[in-house]
């Protein structure tokens, strides 16, 4: 078989859902949103828009990370991070958030096959592990403040509470969103708009875990590594 024959072999998805593209030799005419494939579907546009929001959120976090990295040694004679951090607690929080993210992915699989029970079960445990993370973090904060490391002590602790607290706020908002998503899936079922919201929620929740990876590396581990 020659190369051109290989190219002309019809792909299983090689057809035109929007009756716009008449792609001859234009490459992937089964793909929408690229001119000849016709306009992108709402799903793709919603996902793209939410992805842009997540990226802007990541840029916001990067500003906080940058200020924290710059203020790494600005402890003003007060306690330093590695003196007070509890690595065990950080490891537990990391585990909670990773498991939560994994379960959230499984809920997306269950929602993909329209299984109400398993979607709810996985979303519920996603929330449980998210809540466990949040409680551990609150416990960390109270113990830090009790040991004399409140935000007004030094620039280092101000930036620490800003960056970790901002992530904690995101998790809190994510948990509220999770609750409303569970209610929507239960009462409205797997309608297209509910499915799109679920996709957005999934992206948001995975993004929180992604930020946490950068956070525990920059805030907890690199500080200790120095």
């Amino acid at each position, binding site marked *: 078989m020659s190369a051109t024959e290989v190219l002309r072999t019809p792909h*299983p*998805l090689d*057809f035109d*859902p929007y009756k716009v593209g008449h792609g001859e030799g234009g490459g*992937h005419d*089964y*793909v*929408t*949103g*690229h001119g000849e494939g016709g306009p*992108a*579907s*709402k*799903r*793709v546009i*919603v*996902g*793209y828009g*939410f*992805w*842009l929001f997540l*990226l802007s959120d*990541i*840029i916001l976090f*990067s*500003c906080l*990370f*940058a*200020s924290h*990295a*710059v203020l790494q040694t600005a402890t*003003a*004679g007060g306690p330093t991070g590695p003196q007070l951090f509890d*690595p065990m607690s950080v490891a537990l929080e*990391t*585990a909670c958030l*990773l498991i939560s*993210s*994994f379960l959230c*992915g*499984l809920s*997306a*699989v269950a929602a*993909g096959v329209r299984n109400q029970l398993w979607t709810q079960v996985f979303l519920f445990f996603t929330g449980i592990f998210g809540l466990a993370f949040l409680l551990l973090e609150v416990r960390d904060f109270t113990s830090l403040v009790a040991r004399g490391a409140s935000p007004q002590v030094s620039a280092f602790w101000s930036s620490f509470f800003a960056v970790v607290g901002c992530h904690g706020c995101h998790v809190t908002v994510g948990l509220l969103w999770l609750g409303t998503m569970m209610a929507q899936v239960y009462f409205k079922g797997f309608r*297209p708009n509910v499915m799109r919201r679920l*996709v957005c929620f*999934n*992206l948001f929740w*995975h*993004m929180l*875990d*992604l930020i946490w*990876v*950068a956070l*525990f*590396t*920059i805030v907890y*581990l*690199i500080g200790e*590594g120095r």
Partner: protein
Amino acid sequence: MTDERHMDEEGNVGDVGPGFMNATPESIRESVQGYLIGFVLAALLTVASFYVLRTGLIWAPGIVVMLAVLAVAQIGVHLVFFMHLTTAPDNTNNVLALVFGIIVVVLIIGGSIWIMGHLNERVMPMYPSM
């Protein structure tokens, strides 16, 4: 491959955005497998970055670089296995947006550390007692 076509209830066919599975229909087993692989890889990388600090295997000044590498690797695992950011044609816009985001993030973090580090060196040390 079968002639089966993936179509959602809106009649969209073959669309893959971030957070979606492949355009081709995927079995439950396959998609769970994808998440499992991502989970195991992420867990291993997390354990590795916590372990790097506790072990004397890494040359001390290299620890920070090692941690950064492990974090970037784990972020990559999250993007691919959890957020399904692929090289599929419908993901081109998302990947381009990500590239732009990475440029901005690198400029902000790298630039801040670079400039503020130099400023720190040039300013006289100040202590609260002074």
